[in-house]
């Protein structure tokens, strides 16, 4: 039997189980002398749980067996898959149903079974998301170890030259690649730095305006508008950067007699900064709002002006939280891909000049994995090494930021 008919049969069986279960419960409960008993629909659910949990567990076991195939002949395997497994499944369901209906009596603690299942489902949900993260990290790790088997660590971490073009065949030209990642990380840092120079002042000042100066009506209108910025897909920012801002900076440079390339780090950084403004402002907004009104009152009560109160009481009190927000924004900027793919350069220049093109880690990862590649060449594996380093950096930033923010929150609770 194939999957869907089987599923429908199972669901039908459990529906029938629900109906019988609640009906039987209604009869027995009515006769019961107990004052408070579980409600009939809870008995029904109890029967459904007994009907569905065994087949689900069986299927899970079956699925795992197929990941590591047994040494059985193909014909027999198909037979098991088509006949034995569905029969087993239906038998398990039927047995569960029968057992559960048989057990129904007013003293049965069905609530405990139902709550237990809810508990298990919740735990499974969180375990799956954690396991996914672990899985990603492990896959990065193994590929990275493989990469370092081909390219020495010292070259990757300290090499100043990045040119990962390895040849597909031995007779091609330029078969040796260079895998020094320093220019990529300096490029990432340069663009991130420019982005923060744009996002932090603008985001912070707009947060101060929104929380301390704006009237509630103005706030109600403008805050959602500001947050629209956060909803724009990054690819749109990307071509805005590539087609508008980059060209603008180049033309501006031309008119001033400075040589600015059109995919300059400046253009990519500025646009990335714009993308991050709502991120910084909305986090800082929450943090500034969390500074208790009593501190503002205390400051005003001593004859401080609004700007004195903001500078000397509110911002210092909110500083740890703002630092946390900025760190989160930095990690966001470092990991940002689409804008830099479209607006930043592809050549790995080791430079601190924002008017030149630089490339970033994320751009190179995209570049390495696009197109036909062998999955065991140093070129492809380099992407995993880069991704792992990037992941570790942003993870550390996030952890520090969250710790800072949490510590700050506790202070006023």
């Amino acid at each position, binding site marked *: 039997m194939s999957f869907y008919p089987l599923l429908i049969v199972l669901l039908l069986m459990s529906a029938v189980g629900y109906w019988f279960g609640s009906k039987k419960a209604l009869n027995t409960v009515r006769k019961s002398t107990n004052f408070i008993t579980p409600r009939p629909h809870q008995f029904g659910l109890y029967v459904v749980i007994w009907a569905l949990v065994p087949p689900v567990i069986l299927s899970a076991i079956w699925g795992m067996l197929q990941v590591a195939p047994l040494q059985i002949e193909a014909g027999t395997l198909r037979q098991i898959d088509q006949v034995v497994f569905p029969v087993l499944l239906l038998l398990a369901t039927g047995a569960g149903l029968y057992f559960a209906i048989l057990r129904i009596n007013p003293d049965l603690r069905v609530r405990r079974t139902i709550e237990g299942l809810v508990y298990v489902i919740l735990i499974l949900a969180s375990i799956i998301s954690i396991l996914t993260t672990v899985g990603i990290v492990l896959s990065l790790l193994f590929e990275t170890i493989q990469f370092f088997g081909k390219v020495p660590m010292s070259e990757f971490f300290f090499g100043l030259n990045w040119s990962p073009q390895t040849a597909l065949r031995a007779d091609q030209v330029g078969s040796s690649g260079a895998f020094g990642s320093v220019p990529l990380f300096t490029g990432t840092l340069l663009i991130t730095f420019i982005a923060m120079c744009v996002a932090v002042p603008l985001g912070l000042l707009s947060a101060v305006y929104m929380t301390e100066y704006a009237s509630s009506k103005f706030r109600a209108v403008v805050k959602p508008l500001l947050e629209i910025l956060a909803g724009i897909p990054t690819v749109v920012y990307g071509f805005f950067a590539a087609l508008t801002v980059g060209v603008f900076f180049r033309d501006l440079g031309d008119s001033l007699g400075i040589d600015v390339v059109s995919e300059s780090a400046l253009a990519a950084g500025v646009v990335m900064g714009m993308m991050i403004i709502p991120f910084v402002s909305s986090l800082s907004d929450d943090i500034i709002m969390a500074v208790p009104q009593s501190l503002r009152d205390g400051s005003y009560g*001593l004859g401080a002006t609004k700007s004195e109160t903001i500078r*000397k009481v509110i911002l210092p009190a909110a500083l740890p939280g703002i630092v946390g927000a900025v760190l989160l924004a930095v990690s966001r900027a470092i990991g940002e891909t689409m804008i830099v793919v479209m607006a930043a350069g592809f050549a790995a220049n080791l430079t601190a000049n924002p008017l030149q093109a630089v490339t970033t880690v994320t751009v190179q990862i995209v570049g390495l994995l696009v197109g036909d590649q062998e999955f065991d060449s140093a070129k492809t594996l380099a992407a995993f090494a880069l991704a792992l380093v990037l992941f570790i950096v942003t993870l550390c930033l996030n952890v520090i930021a969250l710790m800072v923010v949490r510590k700050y929150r506790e202070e006023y609770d």
Partner: protein
Amino acid sequence: MPIQAEENVENRSNAEHGVIISTRDVNVYYGDNHALHGVSLDINKHQVTSLIGPSGCGKSTYLRCLNRMNDTVDSCRVTGEILLDGVDIYGPSVDEVLLRARVGMVFQKPNPFPKSIYDNVAYGPRIHGLADNKDDLDEIVLTSLEKAGLIKEVQDRLHSSGTGLSGGQQQRLCIARALAVRPDIILMDEPCSALDPIATAKVEELIDELKENYTIIIVTHSMQQAARISQRTAFFHLGEIVETGDTEKLFTSPTDKRTQGYITGRFG
């Protein structure tokens, strides 16, 4: 109401205590909500005046009119006349920020800034430029802490955080912080409601000492407290002043039935 207020002006308790704040027909609106109805009250210099009344009667609202703290609330509107030494504090020539340096305020919940004890007290003098140099500032901070009766407890840890003190110490720190700006008048909005009885006793003792040099207006929910520390008392009810007078007289022989009902615990 205004008629009764006129009477109160006449039976002013101590002739040597002149009137420092005089309010006439003060109305406060929060949006459409009319919170104070034509309140008239005189506050005598170097005395403790307590404002009592059930919750929501407008006593805190009235207090916050006296240093224009209500200005920080968007929807709030104040009408009437509030004279401080004969100058209308809602008049065009008065800067509410500077007014608040002269009329200090201590709040219900202790609200030290998350700074050191020293910086908390030095905050006001610094923003108003009251000290020319470090020594002056030290002097102001130490005398303020001394006046607030806190110096013995904190002199070894002036540079540790003000939020690490106990509730009662925090409240006295807030009083020291207010004193450091050298105000004439100190408004206190239920300063002891978050404190235990021992800390309350200390703050009350302090208020009693401070009245030698400062005019104190205190909002309190505790009638015993009003009776213990104040010379004059005003009873608010539903946004109006019901009765004002010498504390002793108001508590022993109130003239209004509502006052009598409140102080004997029949409502409120």
